[in-house]
């Protein structure tokens, strides 16, 4: 049983906006989230735009400091908050946590070519002793992600490369320092549908080889299922995790009303099945604003099962049949 590599404990992130006119506004992007990623494991983080999944990813990488809560990393036999690590320890963490961003065209600086963007990490961590060695390593990594012959790509700029090629380069860049953990933030969302599986397969292969833990952020349930099929998935809504557990379990048998609505709404490329499905019974189509979120359970304004308690009290994640669900109405026999 592998141990958790990174643990988030009661992490919240509140952004402040200072508009020119008017009062300061607070956006609760992430509220009281606790989760952990085990070594070598995959956690798919699914939610619609604005639910806070990207913010959570950045917090896990130490790129954003949460307004409250702890980000714990396992180092030297203990779990320590990454914001209070010593310089040496932080260097270890920093090397082990990498990012694959969403937009292939801004994964390397558009004004620089591939080789100049890929060499620096090798030199910084002294993985290569000089530029020549670094170049050889870059070539190896490019081959590893399917870009061959690598020398063809050295002097190219992003504008002359396709989305698929750029995402491969993004993967090469992330694994160049041999990390233990990667956050893939909508890594295939901006690619054509026919290319996505290829890149996901590549990422899965590399994960196997390197023994990586991956936080896979996406809004697409079908892609999440493909990538995290044997692993776990967490569903987010307006800054909270509403359901978390085994991917296949949750998709076949969702418990939280939001998850159920999502699964009923995901387009299915099968006309007979698609036409038979009905609409989820939502009370409203409007996604509440993050500046003024609903009280209690944030989904209550749209939830078909909502009652008084849902308006008053935010539900905690409870363990139901081996998975975590945050809902007052589940577990009641008459809510089926």
């Amino acid at each position, binding site marked *: 049983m592998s141990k958790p590599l990174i643990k988030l404990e009661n992490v919240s992130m509140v952004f402040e906006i200072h508009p020119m006119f008017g009062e300061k506004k607070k956006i609760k992007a992430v509220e009281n989230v606790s989760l952990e990623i085990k070594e070598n494991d995959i956690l798919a983080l699914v939610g619609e735009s604005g639910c806070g999944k990207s913010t959570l990813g*950045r917090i896990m*990488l130490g*790129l954003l400091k949460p307004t409250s809560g702890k980000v714990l990393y396992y180092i030297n036999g203990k779990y320590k908050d990454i914001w209070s690590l010593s310089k040496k320890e932080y*260097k270890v963490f*920093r*090397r082990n*946590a*990498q*990012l694959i*961003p*969403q*937009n292939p065209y*801004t*994964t*390397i*600086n*558009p*004004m*620089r*070519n591939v080789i*100049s*963007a890929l060499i*620096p*990490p090798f030199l*910084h*961590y002294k993985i290569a002793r000089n530029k020549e060695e670094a170049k050889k390593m870059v070539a190896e990594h490019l081959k590893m992600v399917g870009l061959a012959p690598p020398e063809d790509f050295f002097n190219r*700029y992003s*504008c002359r490369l396709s989305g698929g090629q750029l995402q491969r380069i*993004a993967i090469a*860049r*992330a694994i*160049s*320092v041999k990390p233990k953990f990667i956050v893939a933030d909508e890594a295939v969302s901006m690619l054509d549908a026919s290319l996505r599986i290829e890149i996901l397969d590549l990422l899965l292969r590399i994960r196997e080889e390197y023994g990586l833990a991956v936080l896979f952020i996406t809004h697409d349930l079908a892609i999440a299922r493909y990538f995290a099929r044997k692993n776990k998935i967490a569903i987010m809504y307006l800054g909270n995790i509403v359901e978390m557990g085994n991917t296949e379990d949750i998709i076949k048998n969702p418990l939280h009303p939001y998850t159920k609505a999502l699964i009923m709404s995901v387009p299915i490329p099968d006309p007979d099945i698609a036409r038979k499905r009905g609409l989820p019974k939502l009370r409203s189509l409007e996604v509440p604003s993050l500046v003024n979120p609903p009280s209690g359970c944030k989904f209550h304004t749209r939830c078909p099962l909502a009652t008084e308690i849902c308006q008053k009290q935010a539900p905690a994640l409870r363990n139901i049949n081996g998975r975590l669900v945050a809902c007052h109405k589940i577990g009641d026999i008459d809510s089926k």
Partner: protein
Amino acid sequence: MVGRLRTLEKILFEHIYIPLKILAKDKRALFGLFMLIAYILISLIGPMIIPLDLTPNLEERYLPPSWKHPLGTDFAGRDILAQLVHGGRDVLTAAFAAGIVTVGIGTVIGIIAGYMGGKIDTVITALIDIFLTIPGFPLLMVIAAWLLQSGIPINILTIAFVLSITSWAGLARAVRAQTLSIKNEEFIEVDKCLGLSKLYIIFYEILPNLMPYIAMNFMLSSVSAIYSYTGLMALGLIPLTPGNWGAMINMAQAYVGTITGAGATYILAPSFAIILLQISLVFLANGIDKIFNPRLREW
């Protein structure tokens, strides 16, 4: 030895051949480049070929153009062409020196404001706004007048500094805006994850993105400096140096007063020299953008 030769080849290739190739597609930029080179060459070599004789020759005043004096003579019978050729050095040096100082100050201040943010940014932005609001040339006139009676030696360097006081703010603002927009890009986030330092990010990620602005601004600041420099001299606010185009205009204006008839070349020649140089630099500036921005290249 072979290795070093190869590197030299590479530098030449990357920094001269390719930019030239890119520039060649823009006819106006090419024109600008050639004219600039011509001006530089004339300013460097010209004085050696055409001696400057400033002794007054009152018999040959205001002669129209002839073989002996291709551009005629001035109010004291001196050859205009010779003065023009000698004056070029001054003007070009002042212009480019001012350009470099402007760009230097503007870039550094802009990056500090953009990257550091917070209170430093607020203070610097206020400073930029102040300098942008004050009319440039009048401020220059005031500073030049003060400089004259201050006892500070007036040489090319001081003039360059003075000229750049009014032009650094524009670039600083553009640099700050660019820095702010790049600071939050995804490739910077990946750099941070990869452990690359703040200095690395500034020099290798932000600066390359600023190069188009810097290069353009360098050209345009030089243009503006030419204008200011010759203007200040034409108005007599800074000491006249012999053969300087601004000085020529100053004299011409005082002594001639018309642009037709005798002495017309005296005011036309330097004016035309200034205008042509400025136009060339502007054309070149427009073409330079392509060199620094790979996205605009045709291949």
